[in-house]
């Protein structure tokens, strides 16, 4: 049987900010007062990214607007996000974990899976080692973590979600009935608000009730995720801990919330071009070509729609992708003020060797050579060292989407 650890930083953004501020001589620990990390409300990024435990007691929740949070807790202290700091803290945690096993998967910026099975003969009892890891992170890096220990990823993850902060929990299959099954079904990984609501309708309100349900019934109700969710409820998960470089990425997308409502087509297209620059750069870095292109639009009334196109060929040049994006945007936009725009590509062909066709553009090779040169310049001198002429002297950021020039780790992998 395998031994898997799931290491999860407690209120990551907030405790990393707290640790850095204490190091700079800030007179108090912001984890002990009602405090939040939030984006700038003036740019319409004012949502709560992380909250302290005292702030949680006032009903402040991640994802709420800052305005809402301030109404619930008038003496709330607000700090801006610092993604460089978060990257440093996450890297330091990852490096520390690598001392215990070569198999560490960075699941997101604040979560790692560690396969301890082979390390056990060197380091010994998993519980004692988890305790050592937890104490070392606290003493050396200045923040607390929860560690879940079990025989697979899902149970380890569910284990680390039990009581917080600064705890270690085991959740072996024989402990599921007492530790996991009494929890509300919404606590289970992959069960969001919509799924929980559907399950509630058929009187499934705990994870245990879901585990004892009929898997075929779940499939009929929830379609293909139904089986996965039922397996998770029963602690079944065959997925191994995979190094991030071995994870196959199926799509690349970036989006941005604009600081004002965009009503002008030219401006919207410039933002889409800036997003395409980022997406196509990432696509080329993966060494892939895409044959499905999609645009998503969110209006000022928070109505969201998207439009996609399957291409007969695979492409990866910025200019070609943008041409399809422009076409999709013109076909789908109904003229409403736009709040949020997104560009997404998928259906990858895993090589940048291109299939020629009779209907190819004449300048494809030139475009590929141009993108290659631009990518090299940007890698060496920074993303904004070379920009398209149409962005010169304008106020639209020439490359948009992602944080810290897209080196920031979010769910599902990043450049390593």
């Amino acid at each position: 049987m395998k031994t898997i650890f799931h290491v999860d930083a407690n209120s990551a953004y907030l405790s990393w900010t707290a640790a850095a501020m204490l190091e700079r001589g800030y007179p108090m620990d912001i984890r002990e007062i009602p405090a939040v990390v939030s984006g700038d409300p003036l740019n319409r990024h004012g949502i709560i990214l992380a909250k302290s435990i005292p702030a949680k007691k006032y009903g402040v929740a991640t994802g709420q607007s800052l305005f809402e949070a301030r109404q619930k807790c008038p003496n709330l202290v607000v700090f801006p996000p610092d993604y460089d700091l978060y990257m440093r803290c996450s890297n330091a945690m990852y490096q520390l974990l690598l001392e215990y096993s070569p198999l560490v998967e960075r699941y997101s910026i604040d979560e790692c899976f560690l396969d301890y099975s082979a390390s056990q003969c060197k380091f010994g009892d998993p519980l004692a080692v988890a305790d050592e890891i937890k104490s070392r992170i606290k003493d050396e890096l200045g923040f607390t973590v929860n560690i879940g220990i079990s025989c697979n990823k899902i149970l380890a993850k569910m284990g680390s979600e039990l009581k917080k902060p600064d705890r270690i929990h085991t959740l072996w299959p024989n402990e599921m009935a007492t530790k996991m099954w009494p929890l509300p079904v919404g606590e289970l990984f992959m069960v969001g608000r919509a799924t929980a609501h559907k399950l509630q309708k058929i009187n499934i309100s705990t994870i245990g009730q879901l585990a004892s349900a009929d898997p075929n019934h779940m499939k009929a109700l929830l379609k293909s995720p139904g089986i996965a969710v039922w397996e998770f409820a029963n602690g079944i998960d065959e997925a191994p801990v995979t190094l991030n470089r071995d994870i196959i990425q199926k799509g690349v997308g970036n989006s941005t919330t604009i600081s004002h409502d965009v009503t002008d087509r030219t401006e919207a297209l410039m933002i889409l071009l800036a997003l395409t620059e980022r997406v196509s750069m990432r696509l080329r870095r993966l060494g892939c070509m895409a044959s499905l292109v999609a645009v998503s639009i969110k209006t000022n009334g928070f109505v969201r729609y998207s439009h996609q196109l399957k291409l007969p060929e695979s492409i990866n040049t910025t200019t070609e992708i943008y041409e399809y994006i422009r076409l999709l945007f013109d076909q789908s936009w109904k003229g409403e003020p736009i709040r949020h725009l997104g560009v997404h590509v998928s259906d990858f062909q895993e090589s940048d060797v291109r299939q020629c066709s009779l209907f190819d553009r004449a300048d494809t090779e030139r475009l590929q050579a141009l993108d290659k040169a631009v990518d090299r310049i940007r890698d060496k001198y920074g993303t904004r060292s070379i920009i398209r002429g149409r962005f010169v002297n304008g106020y639209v950021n020439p490359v948009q989407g992602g944080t810290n020039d897209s080196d920031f780790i979010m769910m599902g992998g990043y450049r390593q």
Partner: protein
Amino acid sequence: MKILAKPIEAAVWFKSNEKPHPVKFRYIDLEGQVQYVNVDNIIDIKETKMAGIKAFVYRCQSDISGTLMVYELKYLVNECRWELYKM
């Protein structure tokens, strides 16, 4: 000792195979006076990674205005700068 984390100007001796060795530094004290301090004795050096920030913390002892004091200097590796960390 209290955390001050004040950036300082320091004269440092970079030895061939050892960690940098602070020789003297100056800082502005609470009364706004510039203080010049010679680092008389380095008690110990610790590597830290608090909040992922790699640094070396030097526990030092000096005669400051006639009083023998223990304080800590910090060398922030990524930023290549010195701080009067604790006093």
